């Protein structure tokens, strides 16, 4: 990690940023209770980039929402920065990015990035300076005066990332942020995100459906399976920290992709798509 890391007072210097102990979630419904998460135990260290991957219904989004205190766990303990998830949310420790950019049409791009700072009643000069910095970070420095609908999908998602980073959050929670983008844009966004992560040193929890994306981005991949949602494997990604387009062609990268795929298949959930491996390999060879 570089020394440009922004840190805020009050953060414990060591220990996990996120700690889940026997965390369960049961949704009550008209068709009876559904066990979305069953006894999740997970510890995430400072500056880690952790991907949650698994079939639909494995509870990966639910897990992310519990960490972010958008919903509460039915059972177990969730600690964020040494405090409850609720307290962490009230302290504005989170930056959230969803699959949809959720930008407001009635605000310019810059005003959208300023939104969290406005809620915190920060002075105007500080808001503008921060928004400018964040837009430059996502390489949209000249688009501050535009309206969201004038930007492409990838650019809109970068604005959403800039907004999520505006409060220097301790944790960035991303729920399939590139799921709606085409493959080319998605790969470019992956590189972009790694660069931002490197610059800010933020801890990232990243929900995805894509095995290559999970391997390429993460320091650790959490493999989950459905009914009930649980963690079936934790895979350390020991690729070099400095990743680029060539990383996707490394032998170790393919090994890890295969490893994640097999972990997904051995879970009880839906079998992984066997054509994915061939496709990823073919892409790597033809490049």
């Amino acid at each position, binding site marked *: 990690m570089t020394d440009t890391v922004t840190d805020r007072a009050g953060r414990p210097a060591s220990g996990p940023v996120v700690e889940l102990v026997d965390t369960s979630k049961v949704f009550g419904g008209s068709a009876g209770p559904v066990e979305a998460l069953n006894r999740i135990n997970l510890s995430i260290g400072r500056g880690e980039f952790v991907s949650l991957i698994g079939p639909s219904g494995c509870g990966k989004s639910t897990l992310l*929402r519990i960490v*972010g205190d*958008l919903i509460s766990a039915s059972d177990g303990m969730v600690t964020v920065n040494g405090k409850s998830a609720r307290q962490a*949310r*009230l*302290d*504005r420790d*989170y*930056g*959230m990015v*969803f*699959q*949809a950019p*959720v930008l*407001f*049409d*009635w605000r310019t791009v810059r005003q959208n990035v300023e*939104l*969290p700072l*406005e*809620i*915190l009643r920060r002075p105007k000069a500080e808001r503008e300076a921060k928004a400018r910095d964040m837009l430059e970070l996502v390489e949209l420095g000249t688009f501050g005066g*535009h*309206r969201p*609908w*004038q*930007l*492409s999908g*990838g*650019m809109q998602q970068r604005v959403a990332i800039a907004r999520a980073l505006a*409060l220097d959050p301790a944790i960035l*929670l991303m729920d399939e942020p590139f799921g709606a983008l085409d493959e080319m*844009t998605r790969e*470019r966004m992956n590189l972009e995100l790694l660069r931002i992560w490197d610059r800010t040193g933020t801890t990232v929890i990243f929900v995805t459906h894509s095995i290559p994306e999970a391997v390429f981005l993460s320091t650790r991949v959490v493999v989950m399976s459905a009914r009930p949602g649980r963690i079936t494997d934790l895979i350390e990604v020991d690729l070099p920290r400095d990743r680029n387009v060539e990383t996707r062609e490394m032998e170790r990268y393919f090994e890890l992709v295969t490893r994640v795929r097999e972990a997904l298949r051995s879970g009880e959930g839906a079998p992984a798509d066997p054509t994915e491996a061939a496709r990823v390999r073919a892409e790597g060879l033809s490049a």
Partner: protein
Amino acid sequence: MSVAVTTPSGRSAAARLGSGIRDWVPAGAVLGGFLVAWQLVVSIFQVKQFILPGPIAIAEAWQADLPALWAATTYTLSEIITGLVLGVTAGLVAGVLTARFATARESLMPFAIAANSVPILAFAPVFNNWFGVANPLSKAMVAAVLCFFPVMINTVRGLTSVQPAAIELMRSYAAGQLEVFRRVRVPNALPFIFTALRLSTTLATIGAIVGEYFAAPRSSLGQYIATASGFLNFERSWAAIVFAAAIGIGLYFVVVILERIVMPWYGARDEVP
């Protein structure tokens, strides 16, 4: 990453005005052509004035009785505006309260939607009885009740149709209810509310004039039209109808202009290819 971007403010003011006038040329030509055709049909086929007077005859009647027409128009316009202010205000307040409280929403919305289908105009004679025939409030109330339901229903829809992720985003910033209301729900509701306002201008105009047909002071557009028609002075009826139409169209444009001022981002979206 490159993308074609058009700036709404990219065109100069002069170019805008020029194209603004050009935009109206086809519509103006159609209106002119329509009036000429109307006059020609009436003149060539010798249409009786009590069936359809020509535009020239209407213009003459208009000019001959201008002071009385003007008095009737201002009287009716004040009823319409009173009705609009009362109905829209009540609709907005009821909409906000209904949207805020889930129980109110569940219990009141079915009735509001049902009431919106009730022919409120049928109550006009009853309102005359309640508030007095000579009291402008009797017509203003018809207009107000007509405006109330669309405004209320659209306000509720606008305030509650926020995408769930936007609420989650605000929650992640630990934003309070008031912040969510002010920064997300109200801007989201504005297009819905303005749709209801456009509708309201038309409804209020209809409500007031039809209310006057049943009973009203002589110096009102409804009574002017009813009386002139009773005496088979149809040029005068038509002259008054021109005023009534002008009120409806004028109020509609006031709302459109207000809409551009309050939410400039909304119309500009269409300019993006």
